[in-house]
């Protein structure tokens, strides 16, 4: 499973990826092809790499050098095709040779900067100085390229002749007849063609020399892409106050977990965002709570953090200790597909069916938002009971939000605290309602769910007649 395949699954995850400050096309390419990792030791390597960069970035002097490295990384072009051409023994034109020289120069400069920043042992940029010496015979150390005169002693003379003749023609052109101009131009073309044939010989030599360095070129390109991505990861981890996860095999726990996209949106509107603590174990965990208590956001955030971690990123929490899974599955119910002729219930139940079958083979994180809420409550409740009891003895982590009470399943239950009545001071509006919500999760041993729907309708100033009628029905 590659990152690009799962990017569209959850917008909040895509947000984290889109916000990465990656400089080069090869870096972005590397990012899109990141693999889902399931072995703790592989992830440790990734996270430690990011951690080391992050530590260096906290030092303002090193930070400046890393910014310089980022600037250089921005100049890296994807020259995979050119490297393939070299491997095939093709002749390269000036533009391709320029690109190879540019890569060599930049990687040498980045290597030097990383040494200055004390990161050389970490970045380990392959040494392309031999490639540079092939393409920079005059040791100018600038990213210009043409077939230099020093490649072949004949070139200097040919080009001098060419220049002299061209200049002469340019000087006296207006005094010449058409046929005289043609004569000059024919001579110039002849010398130009001679120059081209010598250049051709030089290109052959260059292609031959460069062909011994294709492995190094590929390695450098790949390494620079990896460095680009890793710096971006570290930068994001600092900016968003993310943390390096620990791993274990039995539970997934976060302190002060947050949803980056939502947190940033609320912060921008100067509204409060409450981080939450959570600890889930294998099996089922039911999440209950009033409407608007952030249950769906919690599911999404758990999925996002898990995905970030397993692609080698830090996670949006103060601390994290996670159990690695084979995949994350979202059943959040926005996937109603009328185009397929499926109702919301049908598409939901098919997805859940798939998950249950998969859970026999894979260890997963399964996030199900209010299953069976679009069908009749009698059968709906039975379906939720069936899902919960089926999944409870699996080693997957299944999080289910629900409004059904008395499910009678012996599984973990967490409840969002909900409205803090004592806090309410002014008028509550749909805009400020989240200020009065306490999103803290607490263990719930009862089998009941909060009955706060009417209260919320009241708070939101819905028609009193409607609410009174509803209460009437409820009592009778």
């Amino acid at each position, binding site marked *: 499973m590659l990152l690009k395949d799962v990017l569209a699954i959850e917008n909040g995850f895509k947000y984290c990826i889109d916000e990465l400050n990656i400089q080069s*096309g090869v870096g972005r390419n590397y990012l899109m092809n990141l693999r889902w990792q399931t072995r703790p030791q592989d992830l440790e390597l990734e996270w430690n790499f990011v951690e080391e960069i992050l530590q260096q970035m906290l030092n303002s002097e090193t930070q400046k050098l890393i910014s310089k490295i980022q600037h250089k990384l921005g100049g890296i*072009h994807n020259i995979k095709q050119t490297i393939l051409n070299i491997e095939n023994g093709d002749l390269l*034109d*000036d*533009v391709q040779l*320029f*690109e190879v020289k*540019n890569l060599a120069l930049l990687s040498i400069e980045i290597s030097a900067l990383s040494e200055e920043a004390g990161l050389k042992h970490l970045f380990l940029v392959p040494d392309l100085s031999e490639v540079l010496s092939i393409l920079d015979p005059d040791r100018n150390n600038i*990213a*210009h*390229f*043409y077939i230099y005169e020093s490649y072949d002693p004949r070139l200097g003379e040919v*080009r001098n002749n*060419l*220049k002299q003749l*061209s*200049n002469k023609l*340019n000087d006296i*052109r*207006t005094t010449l007849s058409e046929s005289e101009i043609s004569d000059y131009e024919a001579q*110039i*073309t002849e010398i*130009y063609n001679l*120059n081209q044939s010598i250049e051709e010989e030089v290109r052959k030599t260059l292609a031959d020399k460069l062909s011994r360095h294709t492995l190094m070129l590929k390695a450098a390109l790949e390494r620079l892409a990896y460095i680009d991505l890793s710096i971006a990861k570290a930068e994001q981890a600092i900016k968003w106050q993310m943390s390096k996860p620990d791993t274990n095999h039995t539970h997934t726990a976060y302190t002060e977990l947050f949803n980056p996209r939502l947190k940033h949106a609320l912060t921008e509107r100067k509204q409060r965002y409450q981080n939450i603590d959570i600890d889930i174990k294998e099996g089922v965990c039911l999440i209950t709570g009033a409407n608007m208590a952030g249950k769906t956001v919690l599911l999404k955030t758990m999925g996002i953090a898990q995905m970030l971690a397993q692609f080698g990123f830090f996670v949006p929490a103060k601390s994290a200790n996670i159990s690695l899974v084979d995949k994350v599955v979202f059943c959040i119910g926005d996937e109603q597909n009328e185009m397929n002729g499926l109702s919301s219930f049908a598409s939901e139940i098919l997805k859940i069916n798939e998950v249950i079958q998969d859970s026999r083979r894979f260890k997963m994180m399964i996030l199900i938002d209010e299953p069976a809420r679009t069908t009749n409550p009698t059968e709906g409740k039975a379906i939720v009971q069936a899902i919960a009891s089926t999944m409870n003895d699996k080693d997957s982590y299944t999080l289910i939000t629900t409004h059904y009470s008395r499910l009678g399943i012996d599984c973990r239950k967490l409840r969002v605290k909900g409205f803090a009545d004592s806090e309410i001071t002014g008028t509550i509006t749909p805009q400020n309602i989240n200020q009065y919500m306490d999103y803290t999760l607490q263990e719930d041993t009862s089998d009941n769910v909060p009955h706060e729907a009417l209260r919320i309708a009241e708070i939101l100033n819905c028609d009193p007649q409607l609410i009174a009628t509803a209460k009437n029905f409820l009592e009778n």
Partner: protein
Amino acid sequence: MPFIADLQKYKSLSIVGMDKNTGKTVCLNYVLSRLRNMGIKTAVTSIGIDGERVDQVFGSHKPEITLYEGMQFITSEKHYNTRQLLSKVIDVDTERTALGRLITAEVLCSGKVLLSGAGTTEKLRRQINAFENNNIDITIIDGALSRMSLASPSVTDAMILCTGAAVSPNIRQLIVKTRFTFDLINLPAIENHELANRLSQHTAGLWAVDNDGMIHDLEIPSVFLLEKSTQDIFSHGNTLYVSGAVSDKLLKYLSTKKNIAEQTLIVRDFTKLFVTPEVYAAYTKKGGRIQVLQQSKLVAVCLNPTSPHGYTIDSDDACLRLSEALGVPTWDVCKIKQ
């Protein structure tokens, strides 16, 4: 050596044609041949695909561009590889065009090249800035087809207008059409610089300017939606500012208003006017005035006496009559070399 000395004043110059085959490339070659040896560091590029050996539309002969030692140029990868000159690559753009990436290079020994450049004026502007930062004195943009947008003063400092038999084989018609474009280019800039500066901040919609120079949003996002609006657009006075394109439709609409004789329409620059001579004439005849935020600097008018259909007009006669009609000298691009 006509008009070349004037060029030293500008950082960028566009060469635009009223039509295809009005001699833009011949004119560019003339300018470049003169700039050679003048110690002016010159860069050349074009907008879109141009510089084809054979004209893309009519299939007629089209001269290549001759560049001289020390000049810099931008062209696509495809055209770079077919160049007939010695040059060194100094930069490669990451963006791809239909003809490959754009290559920036410096000429080592003079020769010929086909030019193809950026697709948008925005990109062009960035290239001009980059050249300026690299100590280039003047960047010259070869126009494509009859695109005028690159002559916008927000893109290039000065322009050369090319006209010729391709516009009309009838000299009288040619003069009328050229005169019309000339008039638009020379539309007066508004005198209040501070107001011009404030107006230029608005990049969309229709705005009213009152007598105190206050700008009011008429909340009409595009002049094309004008007819749907019930608002009195002259409630703040007789001056309007349109930040985007102005078409015949708007001028016709404004012509029907009773305050037409007092109206002033401000546009960004002449390249935003997509109006026909007839409608423009009707509008101005009734007293309507058009002003621009920034006026374009027209350096010269050049004439190509040969049309792509093979028809040739009398060059001396045409140049003379154009010069009289415009009040500025007009040069025959084919003869200018001598």
